[in-house]
């Protein structure tokens, strides 16, 4: 198989190819999908190209246009890149008022937005990300943690791109959300397909697990959030009116883009294209608080470990930290270059915020001091809201992120070095989630991949032989999986 980079560059967009091979799913006739343009396929995690069918405010339309442009550019990569957008919209709005005084800018460097958006910076990071030595990663002298994730299972079943994939807090299940309007639950150990959650009328962009791993929330382009019982695979029921299913949580005026449960599981936070963050009382299914969060779609949201803070981010370039109990904004983080932020999460101890920017950088913010502590580079992220997370192996933390060239990258938190680069998917890899020794990725190619950390491996990354032998142990599963749908298929990875 040729290198993913070449694929991304030189072949037509891979998802198209894949799509023509697929029969369209029955649900593809849902209104929102039809609203898209005819050659349709709107990859859900993508920040760009939204709003085909929806009327937008002028600002937003402007922004969206900027992005669709960027999208088309990214197909045939050129260096004259898309970052025209927030310069004119929100970025200037919030910042231009700041007079000459004040502003102790943390980095101490002069600030100039125009300059910072010059193509040079992007070209630089681009060249990084496409550097032709993707696999061969360093065995550095100092004791860096050595994640060695090997692909083990490929889970087929979704008929469209998989927008987000999450491992349950207890590590036993995998939930994947897809543009085909379904959510699927898989067994993390065997890859067995357990359930398909059908009910949304449009593509699903996000899923979230409750802390007890028994309930799932999913957010869709049909503007509804649904709560699902993992055990029954049905929407949550209210025992009060016997057997009646809980109504979906409605209130957002536009696509739901991100979801997060509080550590206690009593509050669900949702971010939407209507630029608001909603906090829901999960028990009552009631909208508890609406935060007038951003001036662009809310692209990422997370709770800190004690549940007192919510962080949200938006493509307007702002990261906001909120007090859960009062609903007040406690801090706003903006990088000088004001790059769009497409995903955000708290560090395991809740002291830092990891922000995924559309300038091929992931930044680790100290939200108390309001400064960037680390910048991670090497992946490709220009137009999609791709995701990642923190992972911990042997007491050492690393950062995992998907990349638009289909790879997954793992960085050491402290040294910013790339620890491992794994090939994930054809086309864009949208999401990666890590739970201990298990890692899962979601791809534009409609598949979910499961990886396991392999200890004491003699080989360097990227060699498939070892994982093959490991996978052989599970090969027998293939025949006897409790498959409920014909189109569900689990295949062992032969070569990566």
């Amino acid at each position: 198989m040729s290198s993913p980079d070449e694929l991304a560059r030189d072949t037509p967009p891979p998802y198209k190819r894949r799509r023509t091979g697929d029969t369209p799913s029955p649900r593809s006739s849902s209104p929102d999908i039809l609203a898209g343009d005819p050659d349709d396929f709107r990859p859900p995690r993508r920040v760009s190209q939204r709003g085909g069918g929806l009327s937008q405010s002028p600002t937003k339309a402007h922004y969206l246009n900027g992005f669709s442009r960027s999208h088309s550019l990214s197909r045939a990569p050129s260096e004259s890149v898309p970052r025209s957008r927030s310069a004119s919209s929100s970025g200037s709005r919030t910042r231009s008022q700041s007079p000459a005084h004040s502003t102790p800018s943390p980095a101490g460097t002069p600030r100039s937005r125009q300059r910072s958006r010059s193509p040079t910076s992007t070209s630089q990071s681009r060249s990084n990300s496409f550097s032709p030595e993707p696999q061969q990663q360093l065995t550095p002298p100092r004791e860096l943690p050595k994640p060695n994730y090997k692909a083990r299972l490929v889970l087929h079943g979704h008929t469209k791109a998989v927008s987000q994939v999450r491992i349950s807090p207890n590590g036993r299940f995998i939930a994947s959300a897809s543009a085909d309007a379904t959510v699927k639950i898989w067994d993390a150990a065997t890859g067995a397909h357990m359930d398909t959650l059908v009910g949304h009328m449009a593509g699903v962009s996000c899923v979230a697990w409750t802390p007890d791993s028994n309930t799932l929330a999913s957010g869709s382009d049909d503007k509804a959030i649904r709560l699902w019982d993992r055990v029954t695979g049905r929407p949550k029921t209210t025992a009060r009116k016997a057997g009646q299913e809980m109504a979906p949580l409605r209130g957002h005026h536009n696509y739901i883009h991100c979801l997060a449960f509080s550590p206690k599981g009593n509050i669900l936070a949702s971010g939407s294209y209507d630029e608001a963050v909603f906090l829901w009382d999960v028990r009552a299914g009631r909208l508890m608080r609406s935060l007038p969060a951003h001036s662009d779609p809310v692209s990422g949201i997370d709770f800190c470990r004690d549940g007192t803070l919510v962080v949200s981010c938006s493509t307007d370039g702002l990261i906001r930290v909120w007090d859960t109990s009062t609903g007040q904004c406690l801090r706003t983080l903006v990088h000088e270059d004001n790059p769009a932020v497409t995903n955000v999460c708290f560090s395991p101890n809740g002291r830092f915020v990891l922000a995924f920017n559309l300038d091929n950088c992931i930044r680790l913010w100290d939200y108390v001091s309001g400064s960037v502590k680390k910048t991670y580079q090497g992946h490709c992220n220009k137009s999609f809201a791709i995701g990642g997370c923190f992972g911990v192996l042997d007491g050492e933390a690393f950062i995992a992120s998907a990349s638009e060239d289909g790879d997954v990258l793992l960085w050491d938190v402290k040294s910013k070095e790339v620890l491992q680069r794994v090939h994930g998917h054809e086309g864009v890899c949208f999401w990666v989630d890590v739970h201990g020794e298990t890692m899962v990725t979601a791809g534009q190619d409609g598949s979910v991949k499961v990886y396991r950390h392999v200890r004491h491996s003699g080989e360097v990354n990227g060699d498939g032989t070892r994982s093959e032998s490991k996978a052989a142990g599970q090969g027998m599963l293939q025949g006897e999986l409790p498959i409920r749908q014909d189109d569900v298929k689990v295949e062992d990875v032969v070569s990566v």
Partner: protein
Amino acid sequence: MNLLLSDDYLLQDYPESMTSTIRSGHATMLRFNRTGDYLASGRVDGTVVVWDLETMGVALKMRGHNKSITFLSWSRCGRYLLSTCQGWKAILWDLETGHRHREVRFRAPAYMAELHPWNQYVALAFSQSSSTTRRFDQFTYIALPSNLFVASLFEEQPLLVDISEPVDVKRVLPSAPKRSNADSDLALKEKQAKEDAKQMTTSAIWTATGDHIIAGTSKGKLNIIDAKTLEIIYSEKICTGVITTMRITSSGRDLLVNSQDRIIRTFRIPNLAVDDLDPDTIQLPLEHKFQDVVNKLSWNHVTFSATGEYVAASTYNNHELYVWERNHGSLVCMLKDPKEEQGVIEWHPSRPLLAACGLETGRIYIWSVISPQKWSALAPDFAEVEENVEYMEREDEFDIYAQEEIHRRRLDAEDEDVDVLTADPTKEEEDLANFRMPILFNLGESDSEDEFVAVSTGTMRRRSPGESQADLSAGAEPAAPVRKKAGARGGKGKKK
């Protein structure tokens, strides 16, 4: 975690205005758990309701009593809740399952039962043998620390109940004060014995360590009882009236006593934990007396603030809540929002938040501080300044550098060591890990709404007591709610 960002410590630390009202039936008793995220309320119909303070919604409802709840006590871990009702019994609930863990019956109506501060299987109980108007006259009490509780019962001696064994062990606590004159003449002894017979324990509380019980009697005597030997090691007459309520700060150093002589007293508790405690040297110095000398108000219920810095009291036949500060003993504010007499009041264990339940409607009112939104938090470029500041431009402020240069410098500056894993060691989290309240979806529309029901278009009528629960306490005994209601009216707090 939000404390890192908030300036709330600058705000006043006592509540100033009513922020919300919650209602589920007619509440008669309130208690916060130790961490302050849940509030338990006991209702006239015997239901125990647990509120989630983050969502202000019902987290759990437990039915098992059929008489008005008189007292509630949380275990230290937050998993068990002991409720006492007028119906001669106490129930220890397991909040994990929502079912009763243990039930203890008494020979009289129980008026309070408090769990041992460390051991949830011991309790202190009081009960009342007849429904006379002298509600507080006599208690049996159960002390339940994680398996031990003190109970006080009407017309009965207080009990120390140990429920660690399948069969609960009840031990009677003495009420007669300790006499120092061992060898006095017979006549005096007889007289004393007569007096002692009239002494009834009316209130009891565990000390912070759980080694001693402080009990107040109908004659205004205060006894300190050793929890192991059940002997009174100290007694003193501290007031002339019946002692109705006793409270202790979380540090265990201060005692708050409400009595029928219309004076609230605070005392310093001596260190009872020393090894060579000589009972004869114990002193209980009086610190403050709070009273309304003008109106001669008597007090329904009293509470300490989180740190013990403030004392709050609800007034008899009056709407106001009084808040005093303890440093100087001065009145700091009167909270007078709802036009309703307030019964039990509770101060949140960490925040400036006060909860009280109205005697008339049984609503729960919550007062707290509204912290203002800081505008500088929304726009990081802004700084709030008190007055005009002349801005000094830095030497290199508008120098122009190449973009790569800026980027490189930034990256080079990121040499700080970050720790994304270690949580703040000053915070104790062990309890959070221990017990997490399950999230119940089946509460649906709880009866936490208002007490008006729509009869037809435009016509509302007041919900009659017990009606809202009719669907659930199904057929328990239809006439009961009315009777209970009447009993409660005539009772708690009004007759002193």
